[in-house]
């Protein structure tokens, strides 16, 4: 069993309630931070911990915090990103539903460190029942003196407010989120200025993911250096992975980032192997935006080394032969699945979620969806595959926000690794309507490893 820092107590009976959470050692980090540490010292600990943003981009959290501008007399804000809408990702939900006080605790310490007196949790609108869970936890924390005025007699005031979104993936992008929090459409802003200088209501703002902010609790409790000893290289601490698709045990797992992809998929502690005795075909290891990998490149890198569940190892080989840890949305495809169809549903998703500000993204996502549907329905031409490649390459890097890239990468990777499956949909159009392509030459690397 690996180390658990976030979910260790998640299954203690009644942990959602304040009494049980506190009895289990909750809110110790607030006492330690507010009573014994300066705000700079907290930022320093987070820097030392090596914690990287858990929302997808993996930017070092401590460094982000140190960028926040502190102009005289201008309030600053911390905003917690609970928009969680990247297909394959459902870890923040798990944390908020099961152990909401952990997030509130992390938010209080982080608000103190950043000087945020009004902190907002922006949660996707569909998680309506979780709003109640969070507001209840906030109410309990306040009733027990952890929020409100003059917390623990330190003179620090803080309120946490929960804001519900209303159905728009793009509002997970931090500047779109800020726009939405201001009561507008979720159109991402041009950067610079960055939110750390001009964010919510033009005030200095830090936006962090739920899991990032919850991780501040063990960092303060253990100290940044101890936290950094867990994991490997620049992948410090633990990471929540939400696993789904064709596996025996879909769910949310906390891993320390030293386990191999093979262990994660096949061990009973985690995914429990491929469902229905099927074989592994492919996997999207970090949420729908990251490149899909065929089984042989997933379990081993192109160099033939074991691939591990961490930032560096998953991206080993770049986009040519690697992928990304991303948001930790781990999507597994078995031998019966169709890569063209899967890619089509993702293209449809991105077309639906494009905010429409930039033409490469607005038009390109629509074209890609149409071409993929045509191929999936056996009405495509070989030249459509080249056209798809061309379109995705023209979206990438030419847009205001990274949604354009996020829409382009899955299409690029699918063609890069599964081109023969795309071609088969054209050359065997009729057959492709009756059955799926299957595993073909993507040997399940596991079968090749001698015991």
């Amino acid at each position, binding site marked *: 069993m690996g180390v658990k820092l976030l979910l260790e107590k998640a299954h203690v009976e009644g942990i959602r309630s304040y009494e049980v959470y506190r009895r289990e050692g909750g809110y110790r980090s607030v006492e330690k931070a507010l009573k014994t540490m300066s705000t700079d010292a907290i930022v320093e600990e987070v820097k030392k911990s090596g914690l990287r943003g858990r929302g997808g981009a993996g930017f070092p959290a401590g460094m982000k915090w140190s960028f926040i501008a502190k102009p005289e007399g201008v*309030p600053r804000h911390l905003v917690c990103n609970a928009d*969680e*809408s*990247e*297909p*394959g*990702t*459902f870890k923040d*939900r798990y944390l908020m539903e099961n152990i909401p006080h952990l997030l509130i605790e992390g938010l209080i310490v982080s608000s103190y460190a950043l000087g945020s007196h*009004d902190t907002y949790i922006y949660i*996707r*609108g*569909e*998680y*309506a*029942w979780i709003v109640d869970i969070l507001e209840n936890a906030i109410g309990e924390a306040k009733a027990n003196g952890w929020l409100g005025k003059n917390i623990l007699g330190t003179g620090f005031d803080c*309120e946490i*407010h929960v*804001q*519900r*979104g*209303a*159905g*728009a*993936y793009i509002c997970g992008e931090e500047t779109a989120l800020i726009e*939405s*929090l*201001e*009561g*507008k*459409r*979720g159109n991402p802003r041009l950067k610079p200025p960055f939110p750390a200088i001009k964010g919510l*209501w033009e005030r200095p703002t830090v936006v962090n993911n739920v899991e990032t902010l919850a991780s501040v609790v063990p960092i303060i409790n253990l100290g940044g250096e101890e936290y950094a000893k867990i994991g490997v290289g620049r992948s410090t601490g633990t990471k929540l992975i*939400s*696993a*789904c*698709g*064709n596996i025996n045990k*879909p*769910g*949310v797992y906390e891993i320390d980032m030293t386990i191999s992809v093979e262990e994660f998929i096949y061990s009973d502690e985690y995914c429990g192997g491929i469902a229905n005795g099927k074989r592994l075909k492919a996997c*999207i290891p970090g949420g*729908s935006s990251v490149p899909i990998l065929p089984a042989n490149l997933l379990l081993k890198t192109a160099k033939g080394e074991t691939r591990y569940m961490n930032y560096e190892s998953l991206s080993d080989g770049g986009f040519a032969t690697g992928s990304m840890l991303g948001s930790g*949305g781990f*999507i597994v*495809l078995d031998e019966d*699945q169709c890569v063209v*169809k*899967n890619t089509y*549903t*993702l293209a*449809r*998703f991105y077309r*639906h*979620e494009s*905010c429409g500000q930039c033409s490469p993204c607005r038009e390109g996502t629509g074209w890609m969806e149409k071409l993929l549907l045509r191929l999936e329905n056996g009405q495509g031409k070989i030249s459509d595959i080249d056209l798809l490649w061309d379109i995705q390459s023209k979206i990438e890097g030419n847009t205001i926000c990274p949604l354009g890239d996020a829409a382009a990468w899955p299409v690029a990777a699918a063609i890069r690794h599964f081109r023969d499956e795309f071609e088969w949909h054209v050359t065997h159009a009729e057959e492709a309507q009756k059955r799926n392509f299957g595993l073909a030459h993507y040997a399940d690397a596991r079968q090749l490893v001698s015991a």
Partner: protein
Amino acid sequence: MVKFNDEQLIEFKRLVSRYPQGKQKSALLPVLHLAQQSFGNWLSAETLDYVAELLEIKPIEVYEVATFYSMYNLKPVGTYMFEVCQTGPCMLRGSDDIIKYIGEKLSIKPGETTTDGLFTLKTVECLGACGYAPMMQMGKHYREHLTKEKVDAIIEDCRKNAAINN
């Protein structure tokens, strides 16, 4: 005429109080949720104008937002709305079959409402329940690990509840 009752007005004020003075527009999304919930689960032009008036912003600022976000219903919907996720991870676990089954059972296509006004079927994109697929949202809650049998039971329950409420 649409108008919040006293209780709804108290909630409205609580929502607005979470933002600094003069930044009441920030309450727009939550207030639209409140309005939708209060006025028959959809937002008419009249409702949108009323929200603009309450928040002291221009009607266009409300229209812009109401049309951007997928959770706001701009036309009436059935008493029970089945919002079934169809994105990749759910598709891998058979969401297409569930959508087809519900459609056949209720004789409607995605986007349509049954003639008795009881059910609306809608396909939606990833709801953050990929590990519990196939799934759908029904009102405030999720129904997960759907099977045809479960769908049958849910529909029956809805019909029973509707009969009691009538």
